[in-house]
């Protein structure tokens, strides 16, 4: 499959995400924030970083980049979209995902190998994992606290829209230890930790992140 990776001004992990896409057996297509063109890709990844310098709010300005009009349109039509870290923030600001991400409750940047549990393996991006599988991947964020009002939180918990949950420690004050969520349809996923940094033995904490980049293929041929 052809998976587009969007580069915004201030994106950091776009090249890593492209590499992870290729290691996962897919073709990586570079997309540019200023172009209202998805180049015919089958899926889109919004990578981590500090797009537009995190000015105003993380993801608030990126949401209105020309490419995002196309991403929102495609996501609403069912195209798989994965937002990692800053990409997760952009998807929340775009209202493609419920909730929002605020500054870590302890107010410090956190960088650690984080244990997670996959809570929903029925999404476009997590089907390669077992339900309840525990994985360890890198977490690095300053504003990763997932929040939502009580009604929204009850709804996403009840509907199984929590995709991944932090284990051992809650690193940023996220409600219900939520590390990632999906939309009602299951095609849009946001994740605060970074699976693209855990796809090769040489670097990172192992291969636990690879499933996010192989799930689309497995889903297509399942």
């Amino acid at each position, binding site marked *: 499959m052809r998976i587009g990776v969007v580069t915004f001004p201030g994106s950091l992990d776009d090249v890593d995400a492209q590499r992870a896409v290729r290691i996962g057996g897919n073709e990586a297509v570079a997309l540019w924030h200023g172009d209202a063109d998805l180049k015919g890709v089958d899926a889109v990844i919004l990578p981590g970083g500090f797009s537009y310098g995190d000015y105003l709010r993380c993801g608030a300005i990126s949401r209105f980049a020309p490419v995002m009009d196309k991403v929102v349109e495609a996501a609403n039509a069912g195209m798989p979209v994965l937002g990692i870290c800053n990409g997760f923030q952009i998807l929340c600001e775009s209202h493609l995902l419920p909730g*929002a991400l605020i*500054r870590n409750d302890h107010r410090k940047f956190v960088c650690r190998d984080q244990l997670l549990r996959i809570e929903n393996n029925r999404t476009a991006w997590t089907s390669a994992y077992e339900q309840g599988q525990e994985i360890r991947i890198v977490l690095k964020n300053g504003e990763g606290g997932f929040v939502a009002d009580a009604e929204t939180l009850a709804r996403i918990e009840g509907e199984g829209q929590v995709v991944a949950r932090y284990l051992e420690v809650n690193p940023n004050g996220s409600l219900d230890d939520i590390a990632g969520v999906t939309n009602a349809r299951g095609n849009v996923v946001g994740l605060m930790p970074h699976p693209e940094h855990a796809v090769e033995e040489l670097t990172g904490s192992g291969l636990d992140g690879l499933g996010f980049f192989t799930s689309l293929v497995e889903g297509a041929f399942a």
Partner: protein
Amino acid sequence: MPKPEILDPQGKAVQGALPRLGFTGVTDVRQGKRFEIELEGAVTDAVLAEVEKMAETLLSNPVIENYTVSVEQ
């Protein structure tokens, strides 16, 4: 402003710093943002409605923030 039910880590940091400077009796601090927007011509209801729209779509995130709009001539 962050909604009352949303944790405000920046406000908490400021609240923690105030007693260290000798300011006592502060029971809570919430930190928000203020935008000063200059407009052409008179501020009619239609113009004000446009500013409300700016506040709702870009300047604030209604999921976690409340906003108010006021006019200064």
